[in-house]
């Protein structure tokens, strides 16, 4: 079971890093934020799996705080930092 947990964690981390491409690429600010959201969810999944694998229940609390704060950051983006996009290059 341990090996499966670690394999899954590694797989999810790879996923997360692949998603980084979207943050770098954009093209719109919203795309970047969206990718960051997926980062958050993936990190939550990784934390939950690692919590099970290592038997450290505190990591579930970390995951919980992650999930909550990711939402707050996203709201900060939507309410404040989202600039007016240039609609010319919004698709790729």
């Amino acid at each position, binding site marked *: 079971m*341990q*090996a499966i947990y*670690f*394999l899954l*964690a*590694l797989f999810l*981390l*790879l996923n997360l*890093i692949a998603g*980084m491409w979207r*943050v*770098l690429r*954009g093209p719109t*600010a919203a795309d*970047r*934020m969206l*990718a*960051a959201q997926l*980062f*958050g969810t993936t*990190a939550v999944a*990784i*934390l939950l799996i*690692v919590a099970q694998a290592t038997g*450290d*229940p*505190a*990591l579930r*609390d*970390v995951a*919980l*705080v*992650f999930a*909550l*704060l*990711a*939402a*707050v*950051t996203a*709201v*900060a*983006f*939507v*309410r*404040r*930092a989202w*600039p007016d996009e240039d609609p010319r290059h919004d698709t790729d």
Partner: protein
Amino acid sequence: METLTLLALSFDALLNLSLLYLAWILLNCEDLLKAIVLFVAFGLLMALAWVRLDAPDVALAEAAIGAGLTGALLLTALAKLRVIETNKGTTQQLKQDSENFQTLHYMTPLALLLVAIGLGYVVFSMPPISAGLSNDVATNMGNSGVSHSVTAVLLNFRGYDTLLEMFVLLVSLLGVWSFGSTTSQHETTPGPVLDTLTRRLVPVLILVAAYLLWVGAHAPGGAFQAGSVLAAAGVLLLLMGWRPGGYLSTLPFRLILVAGPGLFAITAALLYLLKGQLLAFPVEYAGIIIFALETTATLSIAVILAALFLSEPPHSDKEHI
């Protein structure tokens, strides 16, 4: 067992290299918004690194402060900066600091590389096994009043650091207030979705903060983590357009701001008078004293962090100038 080590090792390697790569990109990319989003992602990966290094307390703090609140602070600051730039008609590109001399400019990467190699060598020259203070911590845990070691260090063994640190928070808020108000953005009214999200999320944040405060005595958690999660509730309300208005200058509000540092300092003074020693908690009451200190600290930290996010000085200060 072999596979496990291999998997863990590849996990670590992947995490480490992406941390370094992210840091490089976020510090050198053209677009500041992109840089901030990458910084949030960076904080996220840092938290995973703390988990891998068996530091769940730090991971909690990083998740709440490093990735969460700092991200919100940066995003808001960038938005305000854009407003200022639009008003003043200035634009900015990624550009080198002209103050640093040209010669320095070519030499810095080289010099820094040497510094990095030197530091790397020093890190490797450290003895492979060093108990640090873990034995001292273990021996004295019984007298600390709590059963979680990080809390024991933060609130008891090195409580004096924490006392001063509370004042660091307070001073930064006073500094932010003394600089005066910054440009505030035009707020649109939040739509129904945002409204519902806030209504659901704020109570959850408060509950989680209370849980983290309580759990801190025997498991990862504690005042700083709880305070930041509670602050996030405040930040969410502020993002929805709620403003404290006149509250900021009222005495009760100010009392909450200083309750954490104040109670800590008063406790230190009282214990000196009673026991002749700064912050020497009597063993039988240590648990309850620490809980009282942590509770007030949580409230103060939360309010200070939320006020730092708002960064508007209270009205009464403005009138006198």
